[in-house]
């Protein structure tokens, strides 16, 4: 990963984390604020409901008071004072009065609690009402009414008429009652009639009648049944949070303190959830835009920061590749500017040092060349000098001897002069090394040719026999190369190997494929080389042999280098030497050379 990308990633991550943290904090604060607002709203709703409930109770009490003061009630009280009750006369009395006063429950009872007339259960005359309060309460109260089809809750009031006659009645706490309560939008009232032990879904009603999925409220109801105190819980009606409802449970007790019902005030979370989702969406959008902008800004900033570094890196790469003339522009005076300036000074210094090194190497090379030339030339010059001196001496001492010596001396002179010419010719060849002419070459065919060239010498009686082994890889791909130059290079290496094995040995010629490169290994089992010899082996005019120009391996290296390949040596003293030549496929150069050839021919 580049420095710019790392910097970009760090910037982006920092921004992302920052935005995320801010978003979380904002979300948490919004959630808390919503929760507080919802709590306050629910409290307000509950208070409103209590007020509405109280108002309805006052209405009921007012109606009962009206009935107690009516002529019909007074007449009934007077009639009952005069004689035993004629239940038949009052069978429908309570029912008719209840209908006129829009009451669901109405009973006239005497001082002993005996029902004289009942609206909700007309047939119950003569029976005692066991749940009658000892004295009429001032306010409305919750009461369990006994009905033919079961029990029901009623918001009731009780008043004394006169002469020990009481009227008690009220409105049924049913869906109609709940439906008439004025509640704000998004809220609803439910009542659980606690008329049985445990939970029964049929006892839970709302203004529509039955509550959908009533079992969701069972835990809350059970909690109120156990603790008999107000409780609040969030009820999940579906997988959507918008359907959640905050339900406030209020225990409703009768005159005797018994838990008769549980009022459930539900406040829908939909508005809050939708608002929260809206804010969340907006925050997400803003965050995403912020992150995007941050990434763009980070990219721009990273580019600004890393551009000098990248220039330095590019310059360093170019220096590494040998282009020491690389210059890094200095655009600032900060640390990067100082670094760029130091880099420029470094390359300048390196260039100077290289020039000096080249100069010294050139001097050393000339010295070596001079030494080698002197050495090479000195060898044939010495016999020339002796021969000429012998001829001069023979001429001075005896012309006959001179005559006798002259042919032999002339032959010696010619031979040494020829030797001098050969030396000069070899040096000339090195200076005129030709460029390779690429063509398709199969190394597995080239190496056997080299082996055949030296086959006779391997088994020459004048020297110890050398065994030559060809180990050629069958899958070796052809390469583009100059076969003559390679042949000369391989031959040179074979000659070196033969020189290294004066006491016989084994010469191995191996090929193998290494990816797209062909590898040739030429090994001998000769005396081997020291590490120092290995280091200087390819230096021109260096030789470890007693005679030789020291140009053979330099020429080999030059040939291999001209093919884009490499040559290396592995050797250990006494264990032989292996030259490893790696040659690229260079097949693309076939088209270039053919193109060049065709253009040349055209």
């Amino acid at each position, binding site marked *: 990963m580049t420095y710019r990308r790392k910097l970009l990633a760090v910037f982006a991550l920092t921004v992302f984390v920052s935005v995320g943290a801010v978003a979380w904090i904002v979300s948490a604060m919004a959630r808390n604020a919503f929760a507080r607002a919802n709590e306050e709203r629910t409290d307000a709703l509950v208070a409103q409901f209590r007020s509405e409930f109280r108002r309805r109770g006052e209405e009921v009490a007012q109606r009962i008071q009206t009935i107690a003061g009516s002529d019909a009630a007074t007449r009934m009280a007077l009639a009952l004072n005069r004689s035993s009750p004629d*239940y*038949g006369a009052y*069978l429908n009395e309570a029912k008719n009065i209840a209908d006129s006063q829009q009451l669901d429950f109405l009973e006239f009872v005497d001082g002993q609690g005996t029902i004289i007339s009942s609206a909700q*259960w*007309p*047939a119950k005359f*003569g*029976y005692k009402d066991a749940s009658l309060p000892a004295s009429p309460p001032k306010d409305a109260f919750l009461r369990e009414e006994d009905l*033919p*089809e079961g029990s029901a809750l009623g918001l009731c009031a009780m008043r004394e008429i006169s002469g020990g006659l009481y009227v008690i009645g009220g409105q049924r706490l049913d869906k109609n009652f709940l439906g008439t309560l004025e509640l704000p939008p998004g809220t609803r009232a439910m009542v659980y009639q606690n008329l049985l032990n445990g939970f029964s879904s049929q006892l839970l009603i709302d203004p529509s009648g039955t509550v959908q999925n009533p079992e969701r409220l069972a835990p809350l109801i059970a909690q109120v049944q156990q603790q008999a105190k107000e409780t609040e819980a969030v009820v999940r009606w579906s997988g959507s949070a918008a359907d959640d409802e905050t339900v406030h449970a209020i225990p409703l007790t009768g005159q005797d303190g018994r838990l008769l019902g549980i009022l459930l005030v539900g406040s829908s979370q939909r508005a809050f959830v939708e608002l929260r989702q809206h804010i969340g969406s907006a925050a997400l959008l803003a965050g995403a835009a912020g992150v995007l902008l941050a990434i763009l800004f980070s990219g721009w900033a990273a580019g600004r920061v890393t551009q000098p570094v990248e220039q330095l890196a590019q310059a360093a790469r170019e220096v590494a590749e040998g282009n020491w003339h690389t210059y890094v522009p200095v655009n600032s005076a900060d640390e990067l500017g100082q670094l760029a300036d130091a880099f420029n000074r470094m390359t300048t210094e390196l260039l100077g040092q290289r020039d000096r090194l080249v100069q010294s190497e050139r001097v050393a090379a000339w010295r070596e060349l001079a030494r080698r030339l002197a050495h090479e030339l000195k060898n044939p010059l010495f016999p020339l000098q002796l021969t000429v001196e012998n001829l001069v001496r023979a001429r001075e001492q005896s012309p006959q001897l001179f005559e006798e010596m002259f042919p032999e001396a002339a032959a010696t002179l010619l031979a040494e002069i020829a030797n001098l010419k050969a030396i000069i010719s070899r040096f000339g060849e090195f200076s005129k090394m030709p460029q390779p002419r690429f063509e398709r070459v199969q190394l597995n065919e080239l190496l056997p040719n080299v082996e055949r060239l030296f086959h006779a010498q391997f088994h020459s009686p004048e020297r110890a026999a050398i065994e030559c082994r060809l180990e050629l890889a069958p899958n070796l791909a052809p390469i583009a190369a100059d076969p003559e130059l390679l042949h000369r290079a391989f031959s040179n290496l074979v000659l070196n190997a033969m020189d290294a094995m004066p006491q016989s040995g084994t010469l191995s010629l191996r090929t193998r494929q290494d990816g797209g490169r062909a590898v040739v290994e030429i090994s001998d089992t000769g005396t081997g080389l020291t590490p120092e010899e290995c280091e200087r082996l390819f230096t021109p005019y260096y030789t470890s042999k007693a005679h030789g120009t020291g140009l053979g391996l330099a020429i080999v290296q030059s040939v291999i280098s001209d093919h884009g390949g490499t040559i290396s040596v592995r050797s250990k003293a006494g264990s032989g030497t292996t030259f490893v030549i790696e040659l690229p496929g260079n097949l693309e150069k076939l088209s270039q050379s053919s193109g060049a050839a065709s253009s040349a021919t055209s």
Partner: protein
Amino acid sequence: MRRIGYLRLAVSSLVLTLCAQAATRPHYGGALRVQLREAPSSLDPAQADTPALGNLSRLIFDTLVRLDDRGATEPGLAASWTADPGGQRWHFTLRSGVAFQDGSALTADAAAASLRAANPQWKVFSDGNSVTVELDAPADSPAVLALPRNGIAKRSGGKLVGTGAFAISDWQAGKQLTLVANNDYWDGRPFLDSIEMEFGKNYREQTIALDLGKAEVIEIPPEETRHAMAENRQVESSAPSELMALEFSRTPQSDDEGHLRQALGLSIDRTLLNNVMLQGGGEPAGSVLPEWMTGYAFLFSPGVNLQEARKITAAIRQPAPWTLAYDGSDAIARVVAERIVLNARDTGLTLTLTTSSTSDLRLVRVPLASMDSREALVDVAAKLGLPQPKIAGGGPEALYTAESMLLQSQRVIPLLHLRVSYGLGKSVHGWSMSPEGDWRIPDVWLGGGQP
């Protein structure tokens, strides 16, 4: 001048005297307007299975025989009759000179066809002027042929024609019916020219119509009878002729269940039901048939015996609750059912009210179809889905035994015998009813009087 004045006075006195005599003396003419709660969809006598329809049917269709106020058979369309030994096959000789309201003569074939249509299980033959009826069970009298469903009707082209005192003039099913007097009625033309009936009217609508003079005859439910009389209305009531009872849907499945049914019967305060709920509109029932019909007072004590009822239920561990169904459209039925629930609760029995058609027991009201006690018992058993009682012999002992057997099945608990009452406008004269509530319309005439 004085002479002329005296003459005028004498003429005026004569006219007033004649008018006064006309207002108090039966005379022909007028239309009697009747309002009923029921809304019949058909006038076919074969479907006359309620008292109101029975009364309607009797106006249009005659039967071969009639029952007098004591329940004895008397000639109707049949002038005479004989029975084969065993009492299953009866031969009726038709009255001569009787014609249908469309003018066609009454024939034995027509009478036989009508009886066959109403009684597919009977074998009915005609022979000349006589009709032979082979009943599905022996009978000691032909009283069954006096039932409204055995009215003789000629069914042709979807029209019904009878031989009764009134003929159908206009009929709108379930809404109204207009009958006109049959001038050629074999038993004499009725006083009324026509009868206009409106159906599907509740009691409140009927009383308003009566008070406004838009109706002369209305139905009064038993529980409203006392109130109507307290308002000085003219009320005519029959003898108790409708059975209110509890009917179990099945026979007891165990001795315990039988005992519980017995306890339920003992727990019900029939007197209170009659006096308070029904406002004295009936009588506590100690039998299936009322006393006036059978001659014997009761088959069991109709009084409440809570002590015995509690003793029975206490001996049974965890009595199963029952569901009690009642007719939701009958207000008095609901109140009575609610009281029964309370009475049962006093003895430890649990009853739950329902208006569903499926229940353990139901509160039923069964009109007694005939003044003939045997026919009435058979009809009650049929309507309650009970086994047909076998009444061996003709004496009251046989009826008593048959009724006892019916009660011992513990499928039915009689509660009350209710009266049938009608409120009459002040212009209605000559109104009378049989003890079972059958109208005697041919004797009715309309005179003066404010509504």
